[in-house]
């Protein structure tokens, strides 16, 4: 990737890490001392590692199971159609939907009560914010599985999946065994970085942990965010020390994961030598995979439906399954602020996405015209903003931006969003861009077309679909950002996500519902536009519609 783009991605992270490390180690290590003296430390550290590792393991295992059981079958298309839209659901909205669903006073309990359960009042059960972080883990799995699955889907064609599976099948291998022995090694190589990103995110998420996670004590990342907000600045040292610890933990967890990879690989090779066909486990595996896909799609879909219903609910007492009345009161009273917040969210998302698109296209075009091959190192750098925990470098970046007067503006938030939007836009766009048939360019060049003319008149129009999809992905990523908006926006830049999370502690389900619905609606609109626009643009060029 060209240096400008690389600098754009690495500079804020490096500066932020430095800005975090300085106060953490400064002042004679007072921050570290206070961090170690905090009685909740062992438990919150254990929570971070535990929820991160378990949720990643589950999400990856289920992703692979779904792929192994269904890749190439008609059922797979259905599962894919069900899960793909969930990718655009912001983390906070997914967490809120889940919370509304599984709480003891949530929709499930309401639907079953009092007929099946006999509950006239909500049961006194610790489901949300449970001390072990189980609901947080569930939320993370539900949100990360679609991501890993779509990343895997992008990788499958590159490793010639169908032919390998067919060969293995003719040798008598069951689907699961065929997948594990012939595809998994190559597939996982491509899934490794996304998996690390999921692990790093799972350990350090703030918005999901604030909504679903334990509170006595919270996870380390959530506690760092609370410390950042404390009145006396001395707690900021502690927060910075915590952020450094969080970074170390993430590195440790990824190393641990690497070790697990090596052992799993050895075990797989050893098993492969015995050549077990394992055809018998195909049915139960397919059943579990289907159940998992259904459960996750269902949980998120019902959770989000519950959010929407609350946004138009009048009085809705337990154990009523439905609100007593449907009213637009919430939308009417909150209308002005909803409109304003949506506008800010859209402006930031559009700005960050356009910049990311321009940079990604420039990089890819440079790569194509200079005949560069993407290196592994460049790919790691691309993933850097997804691998380095946000909570580790954003506090530092905020403390650096403050004296420069750079924080608290829409432009600053847009710039920090770019750091997180760019990798996704690039990843989404690079496949189709590189797959574009270079012979078209050669043909055009022999006809005398310049490099620029080929790009603007041929390549870009033919890639309209992928470019728009990448734009929609970028919009969705920007809309979902919580911590960067909160920290760099200094509380003065409000987006739908920061508002929804801020409200989530207050428990006003109607208003939370309204914000969450908009959080869902904006990315959904972006994706619909990405699908509809090419159809309209190429309404009289039928062959163009199928491209990308």
């Amino acid at each position, binding site marked *: 990737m060209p240096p400008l783009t690389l600098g754009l991605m690495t500079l804020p992270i490096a500066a932020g890490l430095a800005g975090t490390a300085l106060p953490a180690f400064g002042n004679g290590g007072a921050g570290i001392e206070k961090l170690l003296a905090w*009685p*909740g430390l062992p438990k919150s550290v254990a929570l971070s590692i535990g929820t991160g590792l378990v949720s990643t393991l589950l999400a990856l295992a289920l992703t692979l199971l779904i792929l192994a059981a269904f890749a190439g079958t008609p059922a797979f298309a259905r599962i894919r159609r069900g899960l793909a839209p969930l990718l655009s659901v912001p983390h906070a909205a997914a967490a809120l939907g889940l919370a509304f669903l599984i709480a003891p006073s949530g929709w499930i309990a309401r639907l079953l009560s009092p007929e099946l359960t006999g509950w006239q009042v909500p049961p*006194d059960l610790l489901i949300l914010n449970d001390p072990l972080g189980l609901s947080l883990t569930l939320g993370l799995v539900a949100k990360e599985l679609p991501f890993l699955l779509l990343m895997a889907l992008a990788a499958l064609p590159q490793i010639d999946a169908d032919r390998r599976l067919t060969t293995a099948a003719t040798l008598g291998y069951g689907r699961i065994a065929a997948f594990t022995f012939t595809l998994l090694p190559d597939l996982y190589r491509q899934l490794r970085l996304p998996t690390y990103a999921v692990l790093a995110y799972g350990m350090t998420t703030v918005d999901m942990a604030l909504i679903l996670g334990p509170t006595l004590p919270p996870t380390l990342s959530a506690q760092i965010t609370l410390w950042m*907000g404390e009145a006396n600045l001395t707690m900021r040292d502690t927060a910075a020390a915590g952020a450094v610890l969080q970074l170390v933990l993430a590195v440790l967890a990824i190393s641990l994961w690497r070790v697990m990879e090596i052992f799993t690989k050895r075990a797989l090779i050893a098993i492969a030598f015995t050549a077990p066909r394992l055809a018998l486990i195909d049915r139960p595996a397919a059943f579990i995979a289907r159940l998992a896909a259904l459960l996750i799609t269902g949980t998120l879909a019902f959770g989000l439906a519950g959010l929407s219903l609350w946004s138009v609910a009048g009085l809705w007492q337990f154990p009523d399954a439905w609100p007593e009345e449907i009213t637009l*009161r919430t939308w009417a009273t909150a209308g002005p602020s909803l409109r304003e917040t949506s506008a800010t969210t859209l402006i930031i998302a559009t700005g960050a996405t356009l910049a990311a698109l321009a940079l990604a296209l420039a990089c890819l075009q440079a790569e194509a015209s200079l005949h560069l091959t993407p290196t592994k190192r460049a790919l790691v750098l691309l993933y850097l903003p997804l691998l380095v925990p946000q909570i580790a470098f954003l506090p530092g970046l905020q403390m650096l931006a403050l004296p420069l007067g750079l924080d608290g503006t829409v432009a600053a938030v847009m710039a920090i969003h770019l750091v997180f939007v760019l990798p996704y836009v690039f990843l989404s766009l690079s496949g189709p861009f590189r797959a574009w048939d270079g012979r078209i360019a050669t043909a055009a060049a022999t006809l005398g077309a310049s490099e620029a003319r080929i790009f603007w008149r041929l390549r870009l129009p033919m890639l309209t679909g992928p470019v728009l999809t990448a734009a929609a992905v970028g919009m969705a990523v920007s809309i979902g950002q919580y911590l960067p908006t909160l920290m760099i926006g200094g*509380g003065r830049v409000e987006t739908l996500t920061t508002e929804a999370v801020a409200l989530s502690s207050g428990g006003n389900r109607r208003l939370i519902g309204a914000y969450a619905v908009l959080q869902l609606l904006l990315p959904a609109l972006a994706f619909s536009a990405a699908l509809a626009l090419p159809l309209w643009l190429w309404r009289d060029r039928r062959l163009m519609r199928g491209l990308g």
Partner: protein
Amino acid sequence: MHRRTALTLLASLPAFAGFSTKALAAEWDSILSEAKGQTVYWHAWGGDPKINDFITWIGDKAQERYGVTLEHVKLAATSDAVARVLAEQQAGQTDGGAVDLIWINGENFAAMKSQGLLYGPFTETLPNWPLVDVAGKPATVTDFTLPTDGFESPWAMAQLVFEYDTAWLQNPPQSIDLLLEWSISNPGRFTYPQPPDYLGTTFLKQVLYGVMADPSVLQSPVDDASYAAQVAPLWAYLDRLHPTLWREAKAFPQNEPALGQLLADGEIDISFAFNPGRASAEIAAGTLPDTVRTFVLQGGTIGNASFVAIPFNAAHRAGALVIANLLLDPEVQARAQDPAVLGFQTVLDLQSLSGEDRARFEALDLGVATLSPADLGPVLLEPHASWMTRIAQDWTARYGVAQ
């Protein structure tokens, strides 16, 4: 320019304040003209949509009357704004600060005032200041035992009241001890917001008033030597109470709206709020059933005032002063007291108002669940701010990292 500086000096000298009414009026006119066109960033807790709507309404009024634009910066905690001003001070930013106005009281005010983070004294410059009931409501000038010295201006009075649903509960327990007995025989039906949340810590202080041998020590700063013995009854009380709480005290609601939502969902039978009108307002909004009523404890409940303060480096000080004054306007105060809007108690002395303004308050229907001023009972003074900090800290060490 010179004249204005002189006037500012004159008005800020307390000795001249008495006979400089004219100068004050001139000073206020210059503030008004300076404020016109300014955008005031009011950092205020944003967790309650009704309060947010009220602040939006204030913004409309400010625009309409004074050409001042009001931006509500919604905070998760007031300390966010304090931290910000502190960071600006440490970064050497002495003007053009991001925070123009803060909704504040208690420990945050004490912290800001002692570190020189506030502008003032300013309250006497406000034309509406004489309407404030300083004598009848001493909490308007004493914030957690700390004299405000004109560095913050009150805008609402609050008192702790308990809420219960008469559909489930007929005779609520009207003392701290009875509450414990009731919770033991009705396990899982009561809880409080997790300290250091403001309301949660207030509950702890209310318990202190109920169980301490001599609650009068609460009016002085914490004395390290005797502290442990003084608060021992609080921990003993909580040790008995916690196993009987909602979720067996393994999780707590995070703040006042979350606690209110638990009552609305029927997860608990008794909740409480720092606002005698909250229950009526929620009933009016259709989010609480109309069978909810309020009660106070025998011997009184804690009450205090909400204030606004202006940071030392506020970029739009004139605009902030205009907003602070507008908040004391009888029309605004009456609207805040309307249970359909906020249900906050006014800080004004109704006797000092004109007949027309007084009528605004008399016309208010306080709502089915609101106790009359007489039934609200005695107001217990807030303990010194150091108590709040200390017990919140100790609570976190004792119960906040549980298992």
